[in-house]
């Protein structure tokens, strides 16, 4: 007869006995891959310093993660690559000219304060990279808004095309006439240039084409659902259409300018700080869109993406509470009781 002796103890575990191959690390790796096109384009536009800022940010995020886990005597988690993602995202939200020591401060805030103080991956209540950016923005307002012009690193500041950012131009203007004047201003990049990122801005946010490529990759890999980015961008589009009195150029500039695409695709979709249910995602994304638009139209700041996402992050537990789906069949039960009587 055949051999069926078993010498070892068998493994006993709760069902199921088959599991997906997806891991946290794999998901983070996908996000990193999705950010690469934007990084490559950024190096072309803003020069090798882009790479320096990004690498420093990644290295220090991972280092801070490692050290804080060690200090807290908790398991080392740098292998899940989430610190790499945070490091890249923070760098993407800074201009390529940002002094390195400031970048490191941002990394420390993001990883140590926002992420690890609250328990590490999955526990932070706001997006670490965004808080890192906001702290830097409050501390070094000049350095963070000193956008180099595209190709300035190659051809020098004098010959560079333009440094005007549309959002700064649009701040505080209402009326259809004013908008037209602003759009027709000669130093404004064309919409095509905006789409391919040939404009001043934070290093990772300018190239819409590369960001959309990353978005497509994330969708194909099913890392994120399209709900949040589409609803977020859609909300901004609708509000800007109204605010711009139907001027489509204005809407185009609003969608491509600032960090809207970067924020909607890579920041607002952060698992930990966004709702799970479909309804919750809609509420959250509409909220992000409304706040972004309000800041852009009425605020003194040119840009509102970071603040809008952070504000909606804080509301996520309440949104989740309101939108938790009812267990299967529970609504019907009440009806049936009524029928029986």
């Amino acid at each position: 007869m055949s051999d069926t002796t078993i010498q070892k103890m068998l493994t006993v575990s709760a069902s199921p006995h088959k599991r997906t191959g997806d891991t946290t690390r794999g998901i983070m790796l996908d996000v990193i891959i999705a950010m690469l096109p934007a990084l490559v384009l950024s190096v072309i536009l803003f020069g090798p310093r882009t790479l320096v800022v990004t690498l420093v940010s990644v290295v220090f995020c991972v280092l801070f993660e490692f050290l804080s886990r060690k200090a807290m005597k908790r398991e080392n988690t740098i292998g899940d690559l989430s610190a790499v993602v945070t490091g890249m995202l923070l760098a993407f939200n800074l201009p390529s000219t940002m002094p390195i020591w400031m970048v490191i401060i941002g990394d420390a805030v993001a990883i140590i304060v926002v992420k690890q103080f609250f328990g590490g991956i999955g526990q932070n209540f706001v997006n670490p990279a965004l808080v890192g950016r906001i702290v830097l923005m409050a501390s070094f307002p000049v350095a963070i808004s000193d956008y180099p012009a595209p190709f300035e690193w190659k051809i020098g500041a004098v010959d560079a095309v333009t440094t005007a950012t549309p959002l700064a131009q649009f701040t505080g203007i209402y009326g259809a006439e004013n908008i037209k004047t602003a759009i027709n201003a000669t130093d404004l990049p064309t919409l095509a240039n905006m789409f391919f990122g040939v404009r001043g801005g934070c290093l990772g946010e300018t190239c819409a084409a590369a960001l959309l490529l990353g978005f497509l990759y994330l969708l194909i890999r099913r890392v994120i659902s399209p709900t949040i980015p589409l609803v977020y961008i859609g909300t901004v589009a609708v509000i800007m259409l109204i605010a711009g009195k139907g001027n489509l150029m204005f809407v185009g500039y609003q969608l491509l300018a600032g960090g809207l695409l970067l924020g909607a695709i890579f920041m607002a979709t952060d698992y930990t700080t966004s709702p799970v249910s479909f309804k919750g995602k809609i509420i959250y994304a509409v909220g992000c869109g409304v706040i972004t638009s309000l800041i852009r139209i009425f605020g003194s700041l040119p840009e509102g993406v970071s603040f809008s996402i952070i504000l909606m992050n804080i509301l996520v537990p309440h949104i989740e509470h309101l939108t938790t789906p009812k267990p299967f069949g529970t609504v019907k039960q009440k009806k049936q009781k009524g029928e029986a009587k």
Partner: protein
Amino acid sequence: MHSEIIKPKKKVRGGVAVSHEKHTKDMPVKRIPAPETVTLPMRQHIGAPCVPTVKVGDTVKVGQVVGDSDQYVSAPIHASVSGKVTAVKEVKLASGLVSQAVTIENDGEYTQFEYEVPKADTKEEFVKAVRASGLVGLGGAGFPTHVKLNIPKEKSVDTLIINAAECEPYITVDYRECIDNSWDVFNGVHLLKDMLGVRRVVIAVEDNKPDAIKILERIAEKEDTDDKIKVMPLKSKYPQGAEKMMVLSATGRKVPPGALPADVGCVVMNVASAAFISRYLKTGKPLVSRSLTVDGSAVVQPQNLRVPIGTEIDYIFKACGGFKAEPEKIVSGGPMMGMAIVDTHHPILKSNNALLAFTADDQSLKKETDCIHCGRCAKACPLFLMPTLIHRHAVARDVKKLERAGATVCMECGSCAYSCPAGKPLVQYMRHAKAVLREESQKK
């Protein structure tokens, strides 16, 4: 000509695309020689365990009752070989439960009990006959079938659902039942249709079994003068075959938490159970053997076998050529809802539909890491639950929130744990949540 194919009324939400692994689908069920002894536990079904009706030294024939219960939710147990009763004692089952069991030494004669063809002209006689057959749900849950068929007067059932979905990976015995015993399936479907007086019969099958769909289509059109019988192909996705999902697909109705399909006018029956009923009513031979799929990366010859109930698991693996490599995990049942067993010296029960042995590199064990709130568990849950939320409430022992979150609604299908990138044992968490609710309600 009218079509025998219908589309599902409603789509099942969530679920997971598990690799089908139906390696044994082209292998007709093979009989193996009966073992030298069989052990028949008295606890083989949901409900009251049976009490042995034989004692040591008795000689029994195949099909003779060796255990029965006077409780309603129970089913008698019959000898699966003929021979001498050598022991009536407590044994440990694969599940870890302890049960009285009757051990019979096989005399190799297979002397059959003098079966009587049961009378089943009225519904009462039919239900009584099904109880006497010892039939329990052959799909894996092991709920006594006669209880399912005996619908109380205040409930009216209009739809019979024959479950041939077989959405668990690896298992192919229901598929083989459709292919090899299609005549029995046909008869069983008609018998049940007439006895239950339903308006409609829906035979549900996943669309990864086109051959079965063809045969079932023929079954549905034959002698179906009032066109009540329909075949419903379902998208192959786990857990289409779960009872609540079957009811939803076939009728669009949702079974409320804690209720039975009969509460929304449905009876769901496994296809092999239906085929067995028709055989039983013809011959009177009770449930003494069953088909099961033996598969997994550690098994030399994966195949479908028909084995006497009470056969030792080890004996069955031997009949399949033993192990290629030492198994790391052995599962009784399907990989999604089956149970990992501690050793192979346990008897096969009526409800066992598969035995799977996995090698170390194929056991899908994952290191547990922190939850990243990705929401894949909630997305995968066909019952709209949020497993991580329920887990949090369970840790906090918050009864109110647990009830509202629907902890008891969970059917433990495993879709959440399957899809978790952090490797969380979410089914275990759900069981813990249910245990918390039980404990807290006992405190009151």
